[in-house]
């Protein structure tokens, strides 16, 4: 499950899952929903993403920033994510297709993941939460 949370100038993305990997995956979906309508993005092409950080929250910011980078350089949008962790390292398979303004209802570019409201934690219902505000 993912959702957007309120921030005056920008927008907060939050991924919620039973595992850390699920929360990161859903956080990525929340990012995509800021930019476009992810349901319209076909998982036609696959790329790999790897990032590393000592702390879980910094790793989430790195993950979101890696997606932003790949979208920008490849002019792609993504809709399917497989995330794996090995200690402080994240490796992911990500599927998507070239951005198309007519097909994907593009709204706005995301400049970066910020450290604002950046949190990764397990709540008392044993759900993992991964979130931050993104700059648009």
């Amino acid at each position, binding site marked *: 499950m993912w959702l957007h949370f309120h921030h005056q*100038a920008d927008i907060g993305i939050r991924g919620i899952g039973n595992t850390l990997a699920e929360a990161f995956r859903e956080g990525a979906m929340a990012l995509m929903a800021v930019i476009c309508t992810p349901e319209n993005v076909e998982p036609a092409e696959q790329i790999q993403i790897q990032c590393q950080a000592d702390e879980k929250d910094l790793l989430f910011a790195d993950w979101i920033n890696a997606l932003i980078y790949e979208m920008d350089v490849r*002019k792609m949008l993504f809709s399917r994510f497989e995330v794996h962790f090995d200690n402080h390292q994240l490796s992911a398979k990500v599927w998507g297709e070239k951005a198309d*303004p007519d097909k994907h*209802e593009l709204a*706005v570019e995301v*400049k*970066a993941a910020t*450290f604002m409201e950046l949190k990764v934690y397990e709540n008392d219902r044993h759900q993992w939460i991964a979130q931050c505000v993104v700059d*648009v």
Partner: protein
Amino acid sequence: MDRKLVKRRGDTKWLVERSGRMNVDGVIFGSEQLIHEMDDMVVQQVRNVASLPGIVEGSFAMPDAHWGYGFCIGGVAAFDAEADGVISAGGVGFDIACGVRTLHTGLKAEDILPIREKIADALFHTIPAGVGSTGKLRLSVAKLDEVLQGGAQWAVENGYGEKDDLRFIEAGGCISGADPSQVSEQAKKRQLDEMGTLGSGNHYLEIQKVVEIYDTEAAAAFGIEEGDIKISIHCGSRGLGHQIGTDFLKRMTTDAKKHGLELPERELACAPLNSALGQSYLGAMRSGINCALANRQILMHLVRQVIADVAPQADIRLLYDVSHNTCQQEQHTVGGKQKKLFVHRKGATRAWGPGHDELPAEYRKIGQPVLIGGTMGTASYILVGTIQSERMAFGSACHGAGRNMSRRTATKKWNGKEVVGRLASQGILIRSRSLRGIAEEAPGAYKDVSEVVEATHQAGLAHKVAKLVPLVCVKG
């Protein structure tokens, strides 16, 4: 805002008294109404900035201040390298040297009105805008390094504009001290096909009509008359700037302890000016400034081509180009002494008063044009910098309206098609590939820019010269 957090020191000046870890006082400029509407977090962020080492005089917030990352948007702070001062990636932001460029057209409203649709379509067709858009220019990394060193000067030398344009850009269109070797490969890769693109979000290209003159002398010096058609471009350093911000925010956060810095919040990531990391950021950030200056120069060139086709009698010249997300090395008088300071303006415009030697000869007696963008449906303003502003806040003024509503709330409240229709009935043509983007950027999602400009004028940070309203708006 909780009024107990500030003490009134005049009609438009509010003091955040020095306490705790603050090294200087905080000062927020704004009308009673703007202060009332301002988020408490602005005060917290003004206090946090005041606690950074080497800060000089005060931690300032402009009348359009709102909750930002580390610095508030509208934050201004100067640091002295000789007093262990810092430079902050959060104090510049992700869109390095985002700014406004306003062009003369030599046209009057009556010249434009019959061909407005044609111009709107031609601009929309030619100016790359929106998510995933690319420019016509394809650069190698080596060529991009030349752009990062040369800024708008590179653009003009390579056929994008005229030499005289450069006189009307801050620093003559090229910031010295840029060091492209400090810019990551990733940042460069993001920019190879993004030169000459507008971007999305609050970035725009507008055809505007001058509807009111407040200061005839300054207006005459700037070449502004009622009924004139001007064109304004609002955009920044695109993917390159965003990546420089991302790269250095992380490095400055992780290295803070090594530099003996206790950050009140991670977004306030900074490094001593006299450190390898501080100097590395300075070289990269200046490259980002030059990237933005070149980008706006290329966009101006595209506008020139479009207008030459559609309205051959037009004469496109540059009124001024000013960035509002920067850290610049400047000379200021502090305690009667001249000091070299590094002035951060995060969502704030430089506003030199009369006599400043960086101004082009035409404006030197009057002061610097301060270009304030509005929304698709409201006015923009041209102001002029003041001597008082140089004394009050290192020569700084507001930069725009600032949002008062989240994007999500805006899309729930408005429908893009309806917004376009409503604006058309008011005589404003919108061209955009994204109806959702239009809803998110609906004029009602922003604060009243007139209130911000009025407070800026009353505070003496900059004085009103002219009001412009949009006729055509191209959005990403």
